[in-house]
């Protein structure tokens, strides 16, 4: 963490913010009949990655792919089935964008110092390292659920990795090695999967802005499949080293029913980090 020293925080213009908002919904690709973003949900460029480039006047494609409708699926044992390919469900640009009503982020002095010193070139995601929790990359990801034993999150990008949640463990190891995804145990509270995670390293960022955390980070995620196409994720972030009090965020993922994950090896041709300039900030 202390390697990331340097300036203040970049502020995105109102125009850019508007553009980002406008990019949250994406048109369906007529070429594939699929959702092009699965595409970087916020991407407008470069060419071909553009959600907006796909939106042409007169095409009448509306605001984006319809969220699949239908009842919440269940496993034979009655538990909710979270399986599927999802898009979204966590912070990308700024974790504060997901703050629940009445919630605020109050960094400690140490948290502020690190936050304000971070530079874009040091973002682990830009360097093809994992996004940790709760950050999500704008690529599709898949939940694979094994009743009563494991839930796996398979990430297409960034990076091409996986996370495992143990339904068959009731407590964390006493002194887990710090890792990018920590140690996660899950249990059902009614129709909500509650995932408790500790054992994080302090290397990943919560978002492009560089919100920090320490190895004391503790997250409690609550996943609720409200209906077929909607996965709600309420996460409580607890880290007394970097934040004066816990805060709760909520993001929603959308089912992409006809998609499959693709290979995405970020390290293969990463040329960007050495060209990044300036303070960490919104994309």
């Amino acid at each position: 963490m202390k390697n990331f020293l340097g300036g203040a925080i970049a502020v995105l213009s109102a125009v850019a913010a508007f553009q980002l908002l406008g990019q949250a919904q994406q048109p369906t690709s007529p070429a594939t009949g699929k959702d092009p973003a699965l595409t970087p949900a916020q991407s407008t460029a470069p060419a071909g990655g553009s959600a907006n480039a796909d939106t042409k006047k007169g095409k009448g494609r509306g605001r984006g792919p319809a969220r699949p409708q239908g009842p919440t699926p269940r496993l034979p044992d009655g538990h909710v089935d979270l399986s599927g390919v999802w898009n979204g469900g966590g912070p990308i640009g700024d974790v504060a964008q997901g703050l629940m009503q009445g919630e605020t982020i109050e960094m400690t002095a140490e948290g502020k110092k690190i936050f304000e010193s971070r530079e874009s070139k040091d973002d682990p995601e830009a360097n093809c390292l994992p996004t940790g929790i709760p950050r999500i990359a704008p690529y599709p990801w898949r939940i694979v659920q094994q009743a009563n034993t494991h839930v796996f999150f398979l990430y297409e990008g960034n990076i091409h990795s996986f996370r495992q949640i143990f339904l068959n463990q009731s407590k964390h190891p006493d002194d887990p090695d710090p890792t990018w995804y920590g140690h996660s145990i899950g249990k059902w509270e009614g129709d909500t999967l509650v995932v408790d995670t500790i054992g994080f390293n302090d290397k990943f960022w919560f978002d492009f802005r560089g919100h920090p955390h320490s190895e004391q980070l503790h997250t409690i995620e609550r996943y609720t499949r409200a209906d077929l196409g909607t996965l709600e994720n309420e996460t409580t972030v607890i880290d007394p080293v970097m934040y004066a009090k816990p805060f709760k965020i909520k993001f929603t993922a959308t089912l992409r029913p006809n998609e499959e994950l693709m290979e995405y090896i970020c390290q293969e041709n990463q040329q960007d980090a050495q060209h990044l300039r300036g303070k960490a900030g919104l994309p």
Partner: protein
Amino acid sequence: MKITLAFLGLLAPVVPALAHHSFAAEYDSNKPVTISGTVSKVEWTNPHARFYIDVKDAGGKVTTWNFELASPNVLTRNGWRRNSLKVGDEVTVSGSMAKDGANLANARTVTLADGKKVFAGSANEGQ
């Protein structure tokens, strides 16, 4: 072949977000660039597809420009293929220049000599 560097500060900035890094940290949306040249290499690789074009100036000196595209995954989902752009193609590319002064830009539009656009929108839009 030509290079046109237009600095249009009056235009509303376009600040796209890329998948794994900040667009604004790498490119200057207030420094649009349009370059014509010959494609010398195409890299259909993550995290971004790239292509390189050779641009010859009046004195015959060749400069190579590196253009960043979306990821192959995004391009593929939009219907494009790894051979949608080929070595030897004559193209005109518009995009935003890298902030650090490298011969590097983000490609927003790629137009072939016959006027057909590649990598913008989806492949079967008949552009």
